[in-house]
């Protein structure tokens, strides 16, 4: 993240670490619901900060990945999903022609 403010860089490091910890707990065999819920709230807060202060329409995929880390989920190559604090909510980043066109927390229903 060349040129990012110290606060943005710190939130970026935080959200990438939190998401890695969250996914490790999700895929672990042992129950981890309480700890994961706490991490989900912290991820939500960090994503909300970056959404407001660092992500803007037109950003490239590389810049978004540099900021938030690799997306754990999504639809095809152009819609990325990051975890949040509630099971039906996800943070979505959508691209068109390689540039960000939509971002925000959305409610998803899935199977």
């Amino acid at each position, binding site marked *: 993240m060349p040129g990012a403010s110290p606060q943005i860089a710190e939130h970026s490091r935080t959200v990438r670490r939190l998401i890695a910890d969250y996914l490790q707990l999700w895929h672990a065999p042992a129950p981890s619901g*309480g700890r994961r819920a706490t991490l989900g709230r912290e991820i939500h807060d960090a994503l909300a900060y970056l959404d407001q202060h660092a992500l803007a329409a037109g950003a490239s995929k590389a810049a978004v990945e540099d900021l938030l880390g690799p997306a*754990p989920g999504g639809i095809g190559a152009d819609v990325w999903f990051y975890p949040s604090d509630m099971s039906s909510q996800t943070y979505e980043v959508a691209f068109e022609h390689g540039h960000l066109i939509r971002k925000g927390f959305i409610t998803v229903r*899935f199977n």
Partner: protein
Amino acid sequence: MFTGEDDFIKALKDTSPDARALIDALFNDPDFLKLWNYLKSCPAINVALSVDNTIKDSHGDELFGLTPPGKLIVNTHKREHHDNPSELLDTLIHEVIHALWDAKQACADLPWPLPDDVYDWPDDPGAVNRLDEPEKDDPDSPDKRHAQTQYGDSPSSTKRYIDVNFPGQRLICGLIEAALKATAGGAPRYRLKGRPTLTHENLRRHRKLAARHWSKNWKDIRSITWEPDGCWHRTSTPRGWIMECTCDSAQMIVKYDDGTVQIDLLGKGDNATFDGGSVTFDRLFGWDQA
């Protein structure tokens, strides 16, 4: 309204010849069309229909299907959809239920097509926190007990509960069973185009199947065919026999003296027992075959 309806239905049909037959049967079922046409005819919404082969949730788990706001997506490359074409119908109907609830407020002028007891979690009045269905390793709570007693297990993750309730799952299974019946092959094997789904298994596991226990009078039976043969284990008893289903599901085809035929599907571990007077069994579902 829909965007991409023709391409979407074609992509579902192109999954396999058996899927084509089942999708055709589903789109000729008036009970399914009532749901589909609610979405299609509502001018206040626009649902973009699509298939995709890389749908993962925010935990990285591959999904069967997904309904974000204004979209309905089916993962046609999901292995289960190819192993069992019935699963494709299951996913489609499941996502249609989500899309209906997503559309309900905007389409309030139209008569609501779902039975009164069919909910998804985000719209279930029995859920305290509708945005946050509990996960299986969460601490005990009223919502967790509600998910355990009214929903059961998710097919896409061992850590989750499914998000359409048991009455909704019975609706899904009923539509699949109607499509299987409509597309069954001819005598003597009555080959089906698909099998029971993970939703049938969820209903069975949670004792929510309708009319599970059945009995047939031996005197009226001309013959019983067990299909496929390798899915049955026979044990002799002092008064008859026990046939145990050893596959995920298998067919018991009963022909009667009056010429009628009944097809019953049993699940893994289910038994059919002949005691000298009648055949009793637990089934997933079944029907009278014309």
